């Protein structure tokens, strides 16, 4: 049996998060937040070492 044609790529779907129009923006925010957390942890270590 032939498989039905694949659905269109779902990346067009808006994240529906205020301030973000694309998922790429959401992922960049997560990445930037991660970098910030690591920097803050490193500063925390230096502060109390």
């Amino acid at each position, binding site marked *: 049996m032939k*498989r039905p044609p*694949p*659905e269109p*790529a*779902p*990346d067009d*779907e*808006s*994240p*529906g*998060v205020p301030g973000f129009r694309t*998922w790429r923006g*959401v*992922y960049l925010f*997560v*990445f930037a*937040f*991660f970098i910030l*957390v*690591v920097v803050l*942890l*490193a500063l*925390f*270590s230096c*502060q*109390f*070492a």
Partner: protein
Amino acid sequence: MNPLDWIVLLLTMIGIAAYGAWHTRHTDHLDTYLKGSKTTRWGTIGISVMATQASAITFLSIPGQGFESGIGFVQNYFGLPLALIIVCAVFLPIYRQLGVYTAYEFLGQRFDAKTRLLGAGLFLLQRGLAAGVTIYAPAIILATVLGWRLELTIIATGVLVIIYTVTGGSEAVSLTQKWQMGIIFGGMVTAFFILLAHLPPGLGFAGAAHIAGAMGKLQAVDFSLNPDKRYTLWTGLFGGLFLSLSYFGTDQSQVQRYIGGAALREGRLGLVFNALLKIPMQFSILLLGALLFVFYQFQPAPVFYNRVEWRHNAMGTNAAVFQALDQRNAALHVEKQEKIRAWLEARNQRDPVAEPAARAAMLQAEVATEAVRNDARTALRAANPLAQTKDSDYVFIGFILDQLPHGVIGLLIAVMIAAALGSKAGELNALGTTTTIDLWRHFRPLAAHDEARNVRAAKWLTAMWGVIAIAFALFAGFSENLIEAINIIGSIFYGVVLGIFLVAFFLKSVGGTAVFWAAVAAQTMIFALFLLRHHFPVLDFSYLWYNLIGCAACVMFSLLLQAALGSNRRATLTANEI
């Protein structure tokens, strides 16, 4: 525990389980039973993903880890946000687009039946082995400390989780996990503030953090390239990335949490929620452990924190040895307190000469205390070779029982049991689903069209895994080393499974036969590395690296084998369709 604690504990635990079972008692559609309600929103998905990962051991052992080794363990989670971005962008849209129930079903569509069975088999083997430990590990600690009977603790928690997981399937799991995480957050925040309130007057959070930092407990980020170190920025980023990618992207206990939901957006936001909160959450739990370390510098601290084990072995002919160790520890502890106060004073006066000298004296006192603790472990082993000598898991629970008011004790015990139930439920749900979809339906294709029969099979298979987990926990006779070994087993399998999925997603020219044999070869290689690590020092590296090596080997072998086998037209066609 007094009656108030029991009321809090039983009301929260049985209440949540009963609510979950009652609310989802009419779940008779296969889709809802295996994937959860179609109306599930991102908050529920996010909490469910978090609750499945956070077992009781998270809340018992991680404060102990912070107490003993400091907060460096947080680096283990550094790969997690990056992995979740990849899962959101690549894995989740494909799973939803294909409408699969399990991650391994996707392998069947992309490759062939044998690769699907291999993926499902590796999952069932690895997760099935861990199933008993998820119940056993917290039960042994709670039973030891609270004087409960171990077998009754295992059976009670096991039966409770089976009832609501079997009744309502994935929907019940998500629903109960939401309430369980509420109890967990509430309990941990309460414990954190009570601990701060119990610190010596005038010390405060900053003073306690300075003591913990000076004692080497607050190094969160280690840039060292030394491969012998288990937790560094690099092991966390690379090993952790592959471990998290495999766990969140290919482990059915996680995949099942986010493939349902109202829309793709809900699953993605649920994962983003975890990507943002996981590191701060683990940091807070580890920090709690580091603050517990400071707390016990100003309180009478036992030489061995598993006091039940200590008292049990400190009788008869060994009494004098154990008593001498207790006395030495108490004397050194008082001495250390004086050194810490002297350092705090020198530090507050900003005396550039006295401060380093006082710090050195304080650290020397800490080394002396640690030496007595090591002697205590040696004495325990000499008295009873089977004695448990790892006591860090008992630090936080000991604090709860000694320092917290009644009612809050019940709440914190509920936190531990809620975490055990939440992760166990996710695990049983996934084991039942994979067995139903990838084995039972695969070998009985005619039954696939009978929805009611499928739901019945899923319920029976979920219950079967629950009973296996209870039996495993009751009869396997775990040692503390075995519990650690189970964690290592995850890393042994995860890398190869991830390799299969990466080939499926990104290497469209590779077909089922190549990836199947590549996975078998890569898994054999990882087994060999693991078994030979004590014979060749060069192979004795952190187990987190197995994730990366297993994955890389599987991908490379797949490419080489496919090149040897020639082009695979079917694979290319199928991959393009996906």
